[in-house]
């Protein structure tokens, strides 16, 4: 009987050792990691440039004629925080006003006055991505609105005096707009009034456009409000 008793002790100890061994080698744990997609694109009007208007002097019976809000052609570095405006200076050479309206479908603004207004929209997003802009054409009752070449979006190029405001094409689109300008370079080469502006991850869009009067026209004394969609998408 005694030898049998001793065998049992030995067997129990061996099983215990084997069990501990299995516990160490088969352990599995799940760990959480964190990652985020690039930030959403955000867009908001820039203060003092928050309205898009052709004014109150539209000639509603001028069928097939147009009225244009001047945006790109009259924008200053100050408006866009660019290091060069379209005329290559910080001065508005033409004397016409940003937001002025011109064309046969409206009463021309005189030099130095603007009865219309153009918007400037700041776009914020990832500096490592480019964006596309789309402003679809709108056909309203008696008129068509197109963003036109007077609407443009800035691409900051990161070196002095080379920023561009890229016009939207005839369908209202622009692609490949980069927002990755080097902060230090742009800050030092930008307009003096644009201190502390950091273009990295931002760009600015001028929203102007052209109104065409379509048959049968628009009655005199008619106020019109029309929603215009500005769609910004990562490329």
């Amino acid at each position, binding site marked *: 009987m005694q030898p049998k008793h001793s065998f049992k002790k030995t067997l129990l100890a061996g099983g215990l050792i084997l069990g501990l061994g299995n516990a160490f080698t088969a352990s599995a744990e799940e760990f959480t990691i964190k990652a985020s*997609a690039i930030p959403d694109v955000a867009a908001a009007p820039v203060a003092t440039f928050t309205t898009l208007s*052709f004014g109150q002097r539209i000639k509603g019976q001028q069928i097939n004629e147009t009225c244009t809000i001047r945006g790109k052609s009259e924008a200053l570095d100050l408006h866009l925080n660019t290091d060069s405006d379209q005329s290559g200076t910080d001065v508005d050479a033409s004397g016409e006003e940003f937001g002025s309206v011109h064309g046969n479908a409206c009463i021309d603004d005189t030099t130095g006055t603007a009865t219309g207004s153009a918007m400037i929209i700041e776009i914020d997003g990832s500096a490592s991505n480019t964006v596309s802009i789309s402003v679809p054409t709108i056909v309203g009752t008696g008129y068509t609105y197109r963003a036109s070449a007077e609407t443009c979006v800035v691409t900051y190029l990161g070196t002095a005096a080379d920023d561009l405001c890229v016009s939207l094409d005839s369908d209202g689109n622009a692609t490949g707009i980069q927002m990755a300008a080097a902060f230090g370079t742009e800050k030092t080469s930008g307009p003096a009034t644009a201190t502390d502006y950091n273009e990295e991850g931002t760009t600015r869009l001028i929203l102007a456009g052209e109104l065409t009067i379509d048959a049968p026209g628009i009655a005199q004394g008619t106020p019109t409000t*029309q929603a215009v969609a500005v769609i910004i998408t990562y490329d």
Partner: protein
Amino acid sequence: MTHFKKALPLILLPLTYSANAVEITANLTFDTLPVITIVEETQMDFGEVLTLAQSETCTLSASVAATDGTTLADGDSGVSGTTPDGGALTGTCALAAGGQPGVYTITSGASADIKVSVTAGAATEIAFNPIGVVYEPDGTTSTLVDVANALGTATASAVIGPVLQAGQNRLIMGGVITNQTTLIAGDAYDSTFDVEVTYQ
């Protein structure tokens, strides 16, 4: 194997973002130019001057200087009042009496170019052919734009206080009456004419 399980999410997650987009809505606004109004200030009145025979004529002058491009002092042109410097009669009518030109205020959008046209109404016992001028006031003088040929243009851009404001012009009308039949002494005869004003 354990290390592989931890690393797998780190590799895959950056690949899972999709293109983001944002849409911002801008409110485009515009107003068409205001409705043009024409208000009669003084009715045209030839007076009791018509002679009776068929085909006889009587002409009422809208202005003593009713020549296209002529300038007049506002006070003489009816711009700063309702009595223009006109009203002379010519023709076979009773010339001495003098008549009253019609005075009409046109209100349109300030600085807007307008086109003024006048056309005769249907003839009755008399036929009336309207002849007149539109004044372009500049504050001290008025430039006359002839509408005798049923077409004239004017720009309403000046401020003439207190009678005329920006966007207002004056139309001064006379014309020629031609008897279509033998008239009856003591009877009154009416005719009409139309004024159309449009933006250019």
